[in-house]
């Protein structure tokens, strides 16, 4: 230590040297990955509270309040059943209504998470510009909110499945890892689109079309066997790798007795599901972290 200075040891230093001497850090610097992950973990209560607050706020003006958590998926299922079950008569799938609602609710989890995730940065600029917290909290809160919504939808789904005469089996438990894998996949994807949406506002306009195309490619509204019949072999193999389709198939396998499947081997289904979850989860997180210092800047 230079203690020879008579009055002020800081005199004669440039501003940068002064800052370095006292261990100051550049404002708004991106923390290293391990530090960022640790900080994100310590904000888990914030993520949960924020997700819950969003959920409560979204129904706070409605007369029926939180009942909409269950009514929304129910109405949705009713509308699609009217069109695809009654008007278009998709009767080659056994127990079509349960088949349809399973696909619809599982896909809706990914769809809404991605849609809201695209705007999770731009819609919270006030919060971002006022407080410092790991920004990944915001897309993660979106996924948590949607996961809570899915729980509401699951209650409806189980009701529908039971009413339509499916038996309760041990296989139902497979729904838990399925939803966990899907949630991890959604978290990664939502973080990725959150960064893209923060950079390019136009993504908000494009997203509905992308998601609709994805929905048609995931066999939500019709029998997945249609892919095998009408697509060339390699394209059908490609569709088998579609993560949304994989999660939907897994949910159908666990709930329904005789649902038609595109993937014949359950091992392959689980492997693809796990690979997408881990790959997208880690990849999306890394991609989001790399943009951490850009969020909230005009």
């Amino acid at each position, binding site marked *: 230590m230079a203690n020879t200075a008579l009055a002020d040891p800081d005199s004669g230093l440039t501003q940068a040297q002064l800052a370095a001497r006292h261990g100051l850090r550049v404002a708004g610097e991106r923390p290293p990955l391990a530090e960022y992950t640790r900080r994100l973990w310590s904000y888990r209560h914030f993520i949960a509270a924020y997700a819950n607050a969003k959920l409560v706020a979204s129904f706070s003006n409605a007369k029926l309040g939180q009942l909409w958590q269950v009514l929304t998926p129910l109405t949705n299922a009713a509308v699609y059943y009217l069109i695809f079950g009654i008007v278009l008569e998709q009767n080659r799938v056994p127990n079509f209504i349960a088949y349809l609602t399973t696909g619809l609710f599982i896909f809706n989890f990914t769809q809404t998470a991605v849609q809201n995730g695209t705007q999770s940065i731009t819609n919270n600029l006030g919060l971002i510009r006022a407080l*410092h917290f790991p920004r990944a909290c915001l897309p993660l809160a979106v996924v948590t909110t949607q996961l809570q919504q899915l729980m509401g939808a699951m209650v409806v789904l189980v009701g529908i499945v039971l009413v339509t005469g499916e038996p309760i089996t041990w296989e139902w438990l497979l729904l838990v890892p399925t939803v966990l894998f899907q949630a991890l996949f959604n978290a990664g994807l939502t973080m990725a689109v959150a960064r893209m949406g923060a950079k390019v506002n136009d993504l908000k306009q494009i997203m509905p079309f992308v998601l609709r195309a994805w929905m048609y490619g995931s066999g939500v509204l019709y029998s997945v066997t249609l892919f095998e019949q009408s697509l060339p072999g390699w394209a059908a193999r490609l569709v088998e790798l579609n993560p949304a389709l994989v999660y939907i198939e897994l949910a159908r396998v666990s709930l329904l007795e005789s649902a038609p499947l595109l993937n014949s081997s359950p091992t392959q289904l689980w492997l693809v599901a796990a690979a997408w979850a881990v790959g997208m989860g880690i990849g999306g997180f890394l991609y989001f972290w790399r943009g951490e210092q850009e969020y909230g800047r005009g």
Partner: protein
Amino acid sequence: MVDQLENSNDVTVTLPRVQDRIPTVVADDAHVIYRVHKGAGATASPVAALKRIVSRTSAPQIREVHAVKGVSFTAYRGEAIGLIGSNGSGKSTLLRAIAGLLPVNRGAVYTQGQPSLLGVNAALLNDLSGERNVALGCLAMGMSPTEVERLTPEIIEFSGINQRGDFASLPMRTYSSGMSARLRFSIAAAKKHDVLLIDEALATGDKGFRKRSEQRVRELRENAGTVFLVSHQLSSVRDTCERTIWLESGTLRMDGPTAEVIRAYETYVNSK
């Protein structure tokens, strides 16, 4: 740092303790340029947008604003610094740069710990009750749930929103602007900050609340923090800050004891 100096050499102990001046914010020739969207103007037709993409020119509705032009200063622990200047002189932008929320285009801003910006437009969720917003704000500042539970009644008490009946359990959209500004200030002031940046927050609220908040700012300073205060009310700067920085159109015009700077500023404003 101080301990280290004292332990390493006993000669320093006899010297005046200048080393106690620990810098918390160092701005080194900081320039901030941000881009604003002008919104849909006369040129915002689809054809114009297409032409722009084809000719690869940047959108005309985006304009660059050079808000802070080379500001340098050093703030020390325990100081309260007022930032004054006319509208659009770059005060709020400078605060954002210190908070690390806006990037510095040239130069640098160094800080100790994480500065917290407390602005009147810090967004909370308007559909939720004041109580829930307090909890959410505290969690967002990194407090633990037990701490939040302990502090929530104190924060509500301090903000005084319950003076006219039980407002804490009502959604924030039912609050008057003064009430919600008071609540925001109370939330941010509940935590000990290394550097607290206050943007016009003291200007809102009634006289009683202003007294309480000035008292709170003094306490925060004593707890070894640094406080920056942006205000158009010279009286509140005079009451809370002993040092003042005067910004004018993005450049640092004067930096010194509050009384001197405010006198110069008032002469300048009156002569305009």
